[in-house]
């Protein structure tokens, strides 16, 4: 076999820059061979090294009294009491899903599940954040159908309920959809598994599917800008095998019951390369691999191919010496391949052998720690000018029925009914509310889960948009009565080498950090997806937030549905009627200007803490936060969910359309019995939380200032019909 000569050209073709290549030659003191170059190229890719984002991610708050493990491991870990911890993370599979929506989304789900069960946690819930192009774009329906089926196809087979998510449509995503999947698991705090290899001479074990030539160079693809040609090239996409993953999950959890494992790491993007390098690097060790022992699906695979393969459903484990037999027995029972493929060393080098030859011999530290870090130049965007006066539409009452059926506001039932959201028999709040709630099995407590971000706010003002994304997630958790614990994020942006895009990134991250600090809501895991551009057109900045909260007792939980006629409807929080960047402005008036609503983090904290207290004390069972579409959308959703109408009045001193459709932050609608009203309003005043009495739950129509704005049934028909109608077209 002839080994291709490596040159600068080869390096450039691998996505490395000339400077980076020079640095590699410098570190090695020689020219790398092609396998070594391949290994460097994935380890130093944006995806693995976070070279553009690292310095900014360091500014995020990552600590808190409950945080057991922050960013840096496969997933974040947070204490939930009783010796238990919640383990969670979100990750993107954007580019593969655009090329092959079903398999791309499915393998994205599989990948994030492995991140969570590698830590010793059983996955108990899935969530996602999706962005598609314009509804009428020729590709959109195909992508929606494939992505949703793929998420369901994988998660349903795994038997993990998919319980929450969010979806937006915007032409900015026509050529770059976003598929971010989040997995939440539960582990015992004394059985958390990490990826740090320890000890010399310990067996390195490969478990899971056989290795094929899947997605070779997927990790560098995930970091490279798209152009029309790459759609034509059609790189190999991976096919997910949820059946094998389910067996791998059960086998790993079974092995984790014993004390045989020293370290474990899933093979995600960059497969064998990054998993082995990371384990060795964390432990300050070396590692030797003999590829002859790697289970292979295809013949004549080269070392290069095996090291770079992204075949799914695989894990790397460092075992205590002498435990191979015990471990193998478990994997045999589950029908999963098990092979000792190497051992740890004290050389600090990664040595890869294949067919008796040394195919790579590299210092681990050069791969993991010497990766470049860039302080990319950025420009901060000037915040948009304030909106002037917005005239009310001629027939305000006719707007609601249109608004409930707008692409970003219509019901997502068509999506979540394709997900098994009730398997595991612990889903106490199904999709459709502010946050989903899954009970911790066998306990009274529950986990609340939500995903949120408002990209149009982030585009208009990255800093305020970043704050808002975190605040909304925190608010959605508070709205069901949960104490927000921590969040994970998936930062989806365009090309960071453009200063404007880098400015969006920096602004959003600053916003995320400030909000997290103010709300005692640290980030414990996350992922960056950069270069989401096609032909130079970038996506909207989309820092998706996945929030997790804790409910002490799932019996004390709020939902959005109106429950009883004659309950009083009260708005908590302040309303200025902020229409800048609102959906009303965009979809009814065709304008997308003005600043996004400012986020007053102190008010967020005050109002959210107050609402959570009301739910925990059993005073209210009906809560909905105000977000997209403003107050009237929140009321309409509460009415549609409960099958009950309402009668409300708008206060004097503010235009009705601004009051109803403004997207002011830090607001919640709550319902209470009339006899509790006085006491609760007094308590709110004491807490410094503004209240507005809106009206009553009543009848089966929505009545505003004495006008009939439509029956709940007709609103629901419009709200429920939009997505199925869209998808009914071929």
């Amino acid at each position, binding site marked *: 076999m002839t080994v291709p000569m490596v040159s600068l050209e080869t390096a450039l073709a691998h996505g490395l820059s000339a400077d980076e290549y020079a640095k590699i030659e410098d570190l090695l003191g020689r020219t790398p061979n092609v396998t070594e170059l391949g290994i460097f190229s994935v380890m130093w890719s944006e995806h693995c090294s976070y070279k553009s984002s690292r310095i900014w991610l360091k500014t995020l708050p990552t600590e808190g009294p409950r945080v057991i493990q922050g960013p840096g491991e496969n997933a974040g870990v947070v204490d939930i009491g009783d010796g238990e911890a919640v383990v969670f993370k979100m990750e993107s599979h954007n580019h593969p899903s655009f090329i*092959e929506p079903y398999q791309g989304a499915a393998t994205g789900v599989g990948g994030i599940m492995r991140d969570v069960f590698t830590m010793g946690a059983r996955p108990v819930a899935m969530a996602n954040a999706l962005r598609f192009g314009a509804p009428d774009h020729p590709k959109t329906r195909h992508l929606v159908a494939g992505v949703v089926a793929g998420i369901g196809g994988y998660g349903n087979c795994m038997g993990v309920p998919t319980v929450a998510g969010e979806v937006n449509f915007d032409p900015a995503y026509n050529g770059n959809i976003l598929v971010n999947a989040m997995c939440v698991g539960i582990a015992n705090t004394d059985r958390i598994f990490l990826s740090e290899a320890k000890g010399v001479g310990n067996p390195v074990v490969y478990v899971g599917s056989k290795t094929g030539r899947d997605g070779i160079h997927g990790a560098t693809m995930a970091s490279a800008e798209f152009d029309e040609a790459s759609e034509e090239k059609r790189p*190999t996409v991976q096919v997910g095998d949820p059946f094998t993953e389910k067996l791998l999950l059960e086998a790993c959890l079974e092995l984790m019951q014993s004390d045989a494992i020293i370290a474990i790491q899933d093979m995600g993007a960059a497969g064998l390369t990054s998993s082995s390098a990371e384990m060795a690097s964390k432990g300050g060790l070396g590692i030797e691999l003999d590829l002859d022992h790697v289970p292979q699906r295809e013949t004549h695979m080269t070392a290069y191919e095996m090291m770079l393969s992204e075949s*799914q459903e695989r894990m790397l484990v460092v075992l205590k010496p002498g435990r191979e037999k015990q471990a193998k027995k478990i994997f045999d029972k589950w029908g999963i391949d098990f092979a000792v493929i190497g051992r740890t060393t004290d050389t600090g080098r990664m040595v890869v052998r294949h067919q008796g030859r040394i195919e790579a011999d590299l210092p681990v530290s050069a791969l993991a720690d010497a990766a470049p870090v860039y302080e990319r130049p950025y420009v901060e965007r000037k915040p948009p000018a304030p909106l002037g006066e917005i005239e009310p539409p001629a027939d305000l009452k006719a707007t609601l029925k249109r608004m409930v059926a707008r692409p970003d506001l219509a019901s997502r039932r068509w999506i979540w009914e394709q997900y098994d959201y009730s398997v595991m028999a612990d889903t106490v709040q199904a999709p459709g509310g502010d946050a989903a709630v899954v009970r911790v099995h066998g306990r009274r407590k529950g986990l609340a889960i939500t995903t949120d971000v408002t990209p149009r706010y982030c585009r208009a003002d990255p800093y305020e948009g970043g704050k808002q994304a975190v605040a909304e997630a925190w608010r959605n958790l508070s709205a069901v009565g949960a104490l927000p614990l921590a969040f994970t994020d998936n930062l989806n942006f365009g090309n960071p080498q453009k200063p404007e895009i880098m400015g969006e990134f920096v602004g959003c991250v600053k916003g995320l950090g400030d909000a997290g600090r103010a709300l005692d809501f640290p980030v414990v895991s996350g992922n960056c997806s950069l270069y989401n551009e096609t032909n130079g057109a970038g996506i909207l900045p989309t820092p998706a937030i996945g929030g997790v909260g804790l409910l002490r007792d799932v019996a004390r939980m709020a939902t959005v549905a109106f429950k009883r006629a004659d309950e009083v409807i009260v708005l908590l929080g302040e309303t200025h009627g902020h229409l800048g960047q609102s959906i009303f402005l965009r979809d009814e008036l065709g304008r997308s200007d003005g600043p996004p609503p400012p986020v007053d983090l102190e008010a967020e904290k005050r109002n959210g803490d107050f609402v959570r207290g009301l739910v925990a004390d059993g005073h209210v069972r009906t809560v909905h936060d105000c977000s997209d579409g403003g107050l009237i959308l929140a009321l309409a959703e509460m009415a549609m969910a409960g099958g009950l109408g309402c009668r409300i009045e708008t206060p004097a001193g503010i235009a009705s359309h601004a009051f109803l459709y403004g997207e002011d932050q830090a607001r919640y609608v709550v319902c209470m019995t009339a006899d509790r009203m006085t006491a609760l309003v007094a308590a709110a005043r004491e807490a410094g939380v503004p209240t507005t009495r809106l009206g009553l739950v009543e009848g089966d129509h929505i009545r505003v200032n004495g006008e009939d704005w439509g029956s709940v049934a007709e609103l629901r028909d419009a709200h429920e019909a939009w997505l199925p109608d869209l998808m009914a077209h071929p």
Partner: protein
Amino acid sequence: MKARIHITLKTGVLDPQGKAIGHALEGLGFEGVSEVRQGKVIDLDLAETDEARAREQVRAMCERLLANTVIENYAIDLSQ
């Protein structure tokens, strides 16, 4: 005309179904079965009677809908 279309996974693409079928056959005691691959077959009745035009039409169907050309190959058989 009648068209029979075979849609099969490209070589090298993982075929979880084929793999599982192989295991199941082994479990049932069938020996000597190495590679198992599963694909789809689609049978169509076409109004078109000209073979060249029919083939072109079916090819377009495969490209646009029937096959996922990122991971699948297709083959078309026509008969009267």
